[in-house]
């Protein structure tokens, strides 16, 4: 019960990013998902080859967009935000 309350209290946010070079194939998707999942505070990663965007849910108490962008740099991608953060209830 206490755990559930703590979980509810988490500040989960979503950010949508575009990458350079662009994510154009399943291999790019795998590389991004396979690495970003180990960044602190990442909760979910959704890639979309059609719009070439990566949607990331993260715990705002543990990380922020800048840290996520640094995570992309580790795998040689420049990431830029395409939307403002949106709090998730």
């Amino acid at each position, binding site marked *: 019960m206490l755990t559930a309350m703590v979980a509810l209290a988490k500040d989960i946010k979503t950010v949508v990013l575009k990458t350079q070079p662009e994510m154009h194939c399943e*291999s790019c998707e795998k590389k991004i*998902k396979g690495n970003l999942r180990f960044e602190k505070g*990442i909760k979910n990663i959704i890639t979309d080859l059609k719009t070439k965007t990566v949607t990331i849910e993260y715990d705002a108490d543990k990380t922020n967009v800048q840290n996520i962008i640094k995570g992309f740099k580790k795998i040689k991608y420049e990431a830029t935000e395409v939307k403002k953060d949106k709090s998730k209830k």
Partner: protein
Amino acid sequence: MKYILTSIMMMLYLSAFGQEKDSLQTDTIKTQNLSDVTITSRRTGTRKMGGAVNGVMINKEELFKAACCNLGESFTTNPSVDVNYSDAATGAKQIKLLGLSGTYVQMLTENLPNFRGAAAPYALDYVPGPWMSGIQVSKGASSVKNGYESITGQIDVEYLKPDDEEGVTLNLYGNTKSRMDANADANIHLNSQLSTELLAHYQDDYGHHDENDDGFLDQANVRQWNLQNRWHYRGYNFIFHGGISMMKEKREGGQTEHHYKIGIETNRYEGYMKHAFILDPAHGTNIAVMTNLSMHQLEANYGHKHYDVNQKNAYTQMLFETNFTKQHSLSAGLSLNYDYLNRDEKETTPGIYAQYTYNLNDKVVAMAGLRADHSSRYGTFVTPRFHLKLTPNEIVSLRLSVGKGYRTVWALAENNYLLASGRQLVIDDLKQEQAWNSGISSSFYIPILGKTLKLNAEYYHTHFNRQAVIDYDSNPTEIRITNLDGKSYSNTFQIDASYLLLEGMELTVAWRLNDVKSTYGGKLMEKPLTSRYKGLVTASYKTPLGIWQFDATLQLNGGGRMPTPVDGLWEERFHAYEQVSAQITRWFRHFSVYIGGENLSGFRQKQPIINAADPWSSTFDPTMVWGPVHGAMFYAGIRVNIGRL
């Protein structure tokens, strides 16, 4: 060959295969967008192959569900193929597809025929698991492109590719049965067109386990060194794949303290090359030349019996393929196969084939193939094969197939492990085997509660006109490999379903019935040592980001007939038994660790070796194996990924 031609054939049916550039730390969560709805689902470890042939692609995700030290251990988590020990003393293993022994399955590596004759009994140990990027299992009469031999199907092993992302992967494995494995793969792109790869494997079984105290090792101690170097070149209109490999193996079994010993030493050398000249990319028009050479040196001692062979095989094929239009495509080619075992056992077989495919918007795919071959031993013979796939909508697809297959039997080379038996091994003057296979299979993709239930049902019938029958029943003092005199057939029915039960959790359930009979000494009897049925349940759960993975498999193997008992030394039938395996994997950015167990219920055949107390008698027999030969086994391993992002 499929890999070479991926780029030019993808418009037809192989679109997915070109994407198989898995690194070890890849994710298996697949996201698809359908208009404004986002669906996130786990990518499954197996998937149906496109095209008219009923095939399953077992990919890296599936191979990670268990330790999969080698090819023979890669089928425990899925219902595609059965693998059984065929000999308790040597550890020889055999694939069973459609209820029939592995010799009726054509083994391919990189879509080239491989592991023939003397290599067959231990071939499943010759392909290290970490070297594989995937396995394609085709059931029923396959394409005529790869020859006339596949009767129940084909198994094609795809190795890791030199043009995959650069890097090094190391894998270390150890288990409680005193086995350790070390594997490495490394590749480098020398320039934008040329890449090379090195694959290395070492294994050592060093224990002396005898759980049932029969005085014999439960499994042979195997020490193997295996090395392969592969090259890939991709030009504008020319693609080349080539490689060489060498393997050395020492296999030791027998009594732990006394004098009955089994020792098998093998040296195997292989070389292959594939050239594809792309003439018209718009129509997928190309000419390909493929060659495979191998030399297999085997020196085996079974007690006082000795068998040496140095089998040489050369295979070459030239093929032309084109898509006249989107609907009509043609593949035609010439092939030449040469086998040499000794002065009396050799064969040269040139062949010619053509295969036409009609594709109506992927809703109707019909594939008709015909080939003619001329064997220096058996003369000219014709192989017709036909496949039809109907996909009326996105929910249902139906496949039909019928085809003929032939096989030259190298009886002693393929069955040399039978020399371990105390019975006398008698081999008659054998004819070329000949069989018809027909089958029907259907796939359903049924949407239930927002997820898809994948349901498959299939029935196959194999009917032998001529067969080399291994007869244990007619004479209690001999094993006779003789020509079929009467009926021989196999009927198999399988139904399997898989469903994403919860987010990240997939459940697969399968059931197969086997009805396999052959004529032994004039009597139509159930094929011995063949389970009447098999059930399989697998559950696989991956946490949302795929950092933890939990896999469990339950197999239920049905009972069956034993060879006719002699002096009451064994029962007439063996009974059903279960097997449980489980594995937990934790993924890190550059490595993953796994622990698991096999045969966790601890079931083992109590007496895998008949009359083990007297290995020099005619009733001694380690070849009547129907179940596990050792109890529960636990293992742990680590995969380290260097350089690959």
